[in-house]
């Protein structure tokens, strides 16, 4: 460890690198300093106030009318108090944001912001918390909406929380922050604001829909038996393998009571993992380059169906999925069989876009090992049935053994072929 630290602190030999590092550090310092600075700006009311104040003050000076000077003095006093309060009360405030790393489209997300005031004497009042929202993927866009919340008072040496809710209507990757704390307290003549360097990114998964019972018909009949058996014995159980000590998370059903009584500590049975056949699904998002920030309804429907299918399948524990996606990017997840993997799938589906020429063959190649065991392929597509074309394109690139056994079920979302299965 020390060696590594020493190595990292050793200045680079190159002068250019030294200059570059120095410039980068300086830029980081300046940025941090600028972020921590409290900015004061006059509000519209403050501008009106200053206008009247100048009128009074100039009139008082030119005509030497003492009462107006007194009035102007009181007004200047109020303005100075405003400035002082705004700048001092925000100084040192920190904000900590608590939000989930991801959420689904259409679901309300609670975001909690906790503001801490480390000052000993001065509180902070009417603190407005503003979190700007940026969409990063699949397209970059600054959103006009902001997450906002207000805290009436943060007492000295104390903390206070406020929450706001966000409901996203488009999947994607978003950035929240940096948080801007501002206050108009006490007289709304000015607004002090301070920006904190606390932006975070999070993902909005595709919308989950309702799968109908007809979905089962999409898969082969021979899989139904194993699925039924799996439901009766539980999702994690297989062939008996042995005994082991109990650990957190083990089901009570697995406790081997006889051994437990004999050893005096909990012992559970251990099972071999059941090797089940995987269902292959290929998502084909073919379409023109979309307008900025929009995506076709058919593409969204296809993505949503796939997300719902994966979600529901893993929840039931009956099946395992092998998923290939041919869209703006082409990827294959050959064995989606747990929450983590589903989350990974959803995260990738969240940012996927349609492509005029999706690479179906590459995706198919990725699915080959699975298809060799289970040659039934379900294709969710935004275009009409291209089975023949796909076979033609894949000829020579896929094993002939697979090509002869491959059975493709093509569902075209543009023709409403998903309607019996998904709403």
């Amino acid at each position: 460890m020390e060696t590594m630290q020493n190595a990292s602190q050793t200045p680079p030999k190159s002068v250019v690198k030294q200059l570059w590092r120095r410039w980068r550090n300086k830029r980081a310092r300046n940025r941090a300093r600028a972020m921590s600075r409290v900015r004061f700006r006059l509000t519209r009311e403050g501008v009106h106030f200053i206008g009247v104040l100048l009128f009074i003050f100039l009139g008082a000076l030119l005509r030497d009318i003492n009462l107006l000077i007194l009035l102007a003095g009181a007004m200047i006093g109020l303005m100075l108090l405003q400035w002082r309060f705004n700048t001092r009360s925000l100084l040192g405030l920190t904000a900590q944001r608590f939000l989930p790393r991801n959420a689904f489209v259409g679901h309300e997300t609670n975001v909690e912001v906790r503001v801490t005031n480390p000052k000993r004497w001065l509180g902070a009042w009417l603190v407005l918390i503003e979190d700007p929202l940026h969409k990063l993927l699949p397209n970059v866009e600054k959103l006009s909406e902001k997450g906002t919340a207000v805290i009436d008072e943060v007492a000295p040496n104390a903390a206070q929380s406020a929450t706001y809710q966000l409901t996203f209507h488009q999947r994607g990757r978003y950035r929240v922050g940096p948080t801007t704390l501002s206050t108009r307290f006490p007289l709304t003549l000015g607004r002090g604001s301070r920006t904190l360097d606390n932006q975070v990114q999070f993902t909005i998964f595709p919308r989950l829909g309702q799968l109908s019972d007809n979905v089962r018909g999409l898969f082969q009949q021979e899989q139904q038996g194993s699925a039924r058996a799996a439901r009766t014995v539980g999702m994690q159980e297989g062939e008996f393998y042995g005994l082991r000590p109990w650990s957190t998370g083990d089901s009570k059903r697995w406790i081997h009571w006889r051994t437990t009584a004999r050893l005096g500590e909990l012992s559970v049975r251990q099972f071999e993992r059941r090797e089940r056949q995987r269902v292959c699904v290929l998502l084909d998002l073919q379409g023109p380059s979309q307008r900025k920030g929009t995506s076709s309804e058919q593409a969204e429907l296809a993505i949503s169906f796939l997300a719902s299918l994966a979600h529901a399948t893993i929840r039931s524990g009956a099946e395992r999925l092998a998923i290939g996606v041919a869209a703006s990017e082409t990827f294959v997840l050959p064995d989606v069989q747990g929450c983590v993997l589903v989350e990974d799938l959803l995260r990738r589906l969240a940012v996927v876009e349609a492509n005029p020429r999706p690479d179906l063959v590459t995706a198919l190649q990725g699915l080959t090992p699975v298809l060799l065991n289970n040659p039934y392929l379900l294709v969710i597509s935004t275009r009409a049935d291209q089975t023949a074309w796909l076979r033609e394109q894949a000829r020579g690139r896929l094993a002939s053994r697979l090509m002869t056994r491959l059975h493709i079920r093509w569902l075209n979302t543009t023709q409403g072929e998903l309607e019996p299965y998904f709403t």
Partner: protein
Amino acid sequence: MTATVLKDLRCSLTLHFAVIAWLTAMLVAAGSGSYFLPAFIFCVSTAAYIFVDRLEWFELGRVGSYVGMLAATVFSVGSYFYSAFSVPSESGQLAAIAGLLVYPEAVLFLQRKSLRVYEQIAVFLLLEMIVAALVNDNLWFGVLLAPIMLMWVSSLFLFSRYATLVQMNPNLDEPTPMLAEILYRLFVKSVIGEKQNPQVVTTRPGQHSGPAGQSLRRILQSIPLGIGAMVFAGFFFYLLPRTGAVQFEPSLGPTARTGLPRTLNVGHVGRLLSDPTPVMRVSVSHFNTKKNYPLRQSPYIRARVMDSYGNASRASRFYGAEWIFGGVPSYLQLTVTQPRDEPLYLNRDRVRVEFDIRNQFAATLYSLPPAFATGRATPVPLRYDSLNMVLDEVDALRVPRSKSMVYEIGSSAFASGVQLPIVPALMSGSHYENHTLYNLTNDFSEFATCEQYRRRLIDRAEIDVQRPYELAKFVERHFTDGDFTYTLDLPPPVDESIDPIEDFLVNGRMGHCQYFASAMVMILRQSHIPSRIVVGYKPHEYNALGDYYSVKQSDAHAWVEALFSQEQLIGTELEGWATPAASYWVRFDPTPARAAETPPTQQGQAIDYAEKLWKDYVVEGQKLDSENSLYAPVSANSENAYASMVEQFKKAQQQVTSGQLWAGLARIGFAWQVAILITAVGVVGVLCWQTLLLLQRFAPRLAGRLGLRPQATRVQQAFYARCLDLLERRGLRRMLHETPREFTQRASLSLQHAPAPSGSAPLDKAPLDKAPLDKAPLDKALSRLTGLYYRMRFSEQQTLSPAEQQDVEQALLELANYPDTTKPQPG
């Protein structure tokens, strides 16, 4: 944020601005004299508060607002032109200017309230404050300024909250669109077309409401702020360097000029005596030390001399019988005393007399002879009539139009706190003077009734007519100690065929000072003693707070002055006060003592003194350019401020080099009363603020009831406070007897033994990053947090390393994401 909360906020804001509008309109009304506007804005704003904001029965729409504004403007401008040209009236113009601000306010009050409407009301109210400051410069402006300031601060408190909520959620505020906005929207809609962007995200703002009792808390908070602003205003006002002399700007208020009249008919003084209007303040101080010179008796303040009397037979009793000045003045510039004048002031105290005359009476100047100049600059040149011992009047058009006129003269009329009745007569021996003196002895020969009365009086008393002073003194005592009665309730004349003075003398024997003085002068002149009536004031109210006499119109007085040669005073009680002068004017006051008057209350004195301070130090700042003021270095040479600054810099440089700087600073006086006032107000403000803090510490329950106690947790280690906060949400609160470790252990056990949620939460209802219901991570997280808390609390290592910080954040996240089994699970 519910609509009810926002509505309450609007109502409260409207009420605040309504109160400010009433108070400001009252300020304007107190200056302009018309109370229609405050009554109008009171009615309209009250109706608006009830029917527009509270009940929401009606409101002025867009068209109604435009029409109302237009009508208000046209009406006010029309009123102004009418008052300016058709029927010239200054008060009418003032009312029109005030109306130009108040009527639009009324229209705004009747509109649906929004940020924009409140801004406009605020601007109109500020402008109205300017008008109030221009038309109303009395103490009430200062008195009402404090509550108005507090109301402003309180209103702006509310307004800041309202503006913050609107900024957080603009949909809350739906202002009536301005015409330009409507046109722009129409243009955009018709030409460009409306562009529909897909909605990406819907936000729902959140709010953490503060403790209960917000209104009281806000008011308590506004007090130190308002006082702070006022204190700043005071310091700003007094520390602002002034490069020019204080200008006497015309006041827009009424400027009636009803001082002592030049001609005095028989009933005139009676009317003055029933008028309690303040006239001036007179203070007397030692000439050299400038300290207060205490007087044992009220001084006779001299205004005019009346030496000719109209014949009653030529006109009616009340309009023909009048005193006028028929003599010849002998004016000279009032000068500082010279060594050659010293004998004239023998055995007398030399004092400074400051007259602070209200503007409407400032045409007449007053004196206390023998008078001389003090060297202090005066707003008008003082011309002294040495024969009549009065100051020349000022042309009414040349009187400085300020709230008052202050000048100072020197006087040697006092000895040991008593105003001497004898004044050396300064005669030049000119023909005009001789003619005047002749008239003073031969003007009443035709009044037979009086002559008969005088003869009977002298014969009965066996007075030696060759000793004129004793004769005059006897006549004075005849009136003061006889059966004459002082009254302002004059009986009707008994004999209308004779002069009213004669009728008073022989029939009525009841009257006021003018009757007594006239009768005595009549008797003295018929006895060939030169005499005349002097009109002025004899104040009865001494203000002990400010060490000055407060003179009112009801203090008007007339007395008698007779001329005696030095020989005629030999052997009298006045012989000792004689100086090397040929003749002397001796004062006689034949008016009997009036009925006992109610002495002025301490409260009345305090108000009067406060008014004086307000005038001296604020409205006109007369004390600000005095040599004792902090401004003196700047304002002394007002014509060339820059040259003055250079000169002062050089002086300071010389003082530094000679080591006299600190001695010089020690001599600088300040308006200590104002300094004490400002300091006291500041101290009170700080005390109020500190009381709020101490209340929270020593009486937390009371502070909680008042809404002063912050509900947020007091923390030393923010992460552990956050941990406690998260546990508190699950109903776990640390007991007083528990150590932090005991508490977290109990919390861990409690959460682990809580009933498990009914089935696993569906994946679509719970975030995927949340861990499944596993007790061990919770236990570990709580242990980690508690351990770090103990370390930071009790060890010297007070900081967390980056790795520990990350660990803490992870533990808090685990705690936050731990399923809340106490709440029903969705789905």
